[in-house]
């Protein structure tokens, strides 16, 4: 009974937090660009507007895939809150992205297809590092369960500093922030029209937006996992991490997919592997 309450609470509160964070993101971005910026509740207005519009789809499967994207993100977040297996959460998260890619590929629009291809490449870039993060956590705590990771009696960041850096690096790709906003970007930086979401309109786009909010909360909780010993420190770390993402978003220009892949697989994966070897020697061999 307690768990059902927790699940319902998560499903209701997570989009509110995600929407507010997105609104604060837009406000801070505007201030960094010397503008006044939209109200903080603007993402909610956008979402409600999208839901009150007419549904236009090119093929009906698009609706299914947009819905699946939302559902898989919600399931991943709920699994995290119920303190389940980290590996399984990662797989469910990968399914969510796959649903979005399939939705974009189910239309004949070239922009949507290019966006989908770029999204596939970014999945290729960040997925090994996310796995490395979870393997590192396993080496230190001896368990894949979120429950055991939270109970670990030290800050994980002291054991996994390089993996944490690699994870924040990958977070930029996952949140589609500026140096790596190849597949789609939020506010009017057009290159391939709107990339992966070009062919989604009205309420279907609203579902994807809602899915992004759940995804944002889940990824910030992943940052919190590194500071799980003290909840206040964890919340501060999450907010600081998000602010860092906004800062990077504003000070950098978009890179091509080749550079993204090269940088991610050399720097981020290198850092993660160095840390993995260090942790493996410390906990498994000594």
């Amino acid at each position, binding site marked *: 009974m307690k768990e059902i309450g927790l699940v319902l609470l998560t499903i209701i509160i997570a989009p509110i937090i995600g929407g507010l964070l997105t609104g604060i993101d837009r406000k801070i971005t*505007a201030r960094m660009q010397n503008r006044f910026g939209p109200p903080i509740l603007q993402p909610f207005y956008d979402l409600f507007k999208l839901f009150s519009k*007419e549904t236009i789809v090119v093929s009906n499967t698009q609706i299914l895939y947009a819905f699946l994207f939302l559902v898989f993100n919600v399931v991943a977040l709920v699994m995290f809150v119920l303190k389940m297996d980290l590996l399984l959460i990662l797989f469910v998260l990968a399914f969510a992205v796959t649903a979005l890619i399939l939705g974009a590929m189910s239309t004949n629009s070239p922009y949507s297809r290019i966006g989908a291809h770029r999204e596939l490449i970014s999945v290729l870039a960040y997925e090994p590092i996310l796995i490395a993060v979870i393997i590192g956590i396993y080496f230190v705590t001896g368990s894949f369960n979120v429950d055991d990771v939270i109970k670990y009696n030290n800050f994980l960041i002291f054991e996994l500093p390089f993996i944490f850096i690699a994870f924040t690096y990958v977070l930029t790709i996952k949140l589609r922030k500026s140096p790596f906003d190849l597949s789609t970007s939020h506010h009017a930086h057009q290159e391939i029209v709107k990339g992966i979401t070009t062919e989604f309109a009205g309420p279907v786009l609203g579902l994807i937006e809602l899915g992004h909010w759940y995804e944002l909360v889940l990824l910030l909780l992943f940052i919190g996992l590194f500071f799980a010993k003290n909840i206040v420190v964890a919340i501060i770390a999450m907010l600081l991490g998000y602010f860092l993402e906004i800062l990077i978003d504003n000070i950098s220009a978009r890179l091509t997919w080749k550079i993204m892949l090269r940088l991610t697989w050399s720097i981020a994966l290198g850092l993660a592997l160095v840390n993995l070897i260090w942790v493996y020697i410390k906990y498994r061999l000594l």
Partner: protein
Amino acid sequence: MGIYKIQVIIGRIEVRFKVIFRRALKKSPWIVHYDCNSCNGCDIEILSTLTPVYDIERFGIINVGNPKHADILVVSGSVNHRNARVLKNIYEQMPHPKAVVAIGACACSGGIFKECYNTLGGADTVIPVDVYVPGCAPRPEAIMEGILKAAQMLEEKKKNMKKGEILNAAKS
């Protein structure tokens, strides 16, 4: 008696939500800009509303550049035989409720090209225009006011929107 009260409360919440949904329409009008045959004077003024000086995003307005996400179509320049088809196509791809703003003298009436053999006239010869912003070129403040007036109309259009009247143009 208890069930009746619950029904009343649910009804109130429903009405409240409908009001919020309708209000959200005018709070976040996303625009798509199409340059018909303009001399670029109006286009520069439209783009200048996006700059930090005027900052149109403080009203929630984003230039999305994609008709399927847009609520308001901003047209500049007079319509000719070549781009009439394109303009109509962009208008039909936008989901209901939608509005059109004609920016500048050319888009309002055809301007100095009105009687030319190769132009059809203003944007309203091809698609229904809701707001006319006159001027050659209009000030950014005037453009912003025009777009916000069109946003107010969206709410009215949503109210009048009936399911039978919507034509699903983009459906293949």
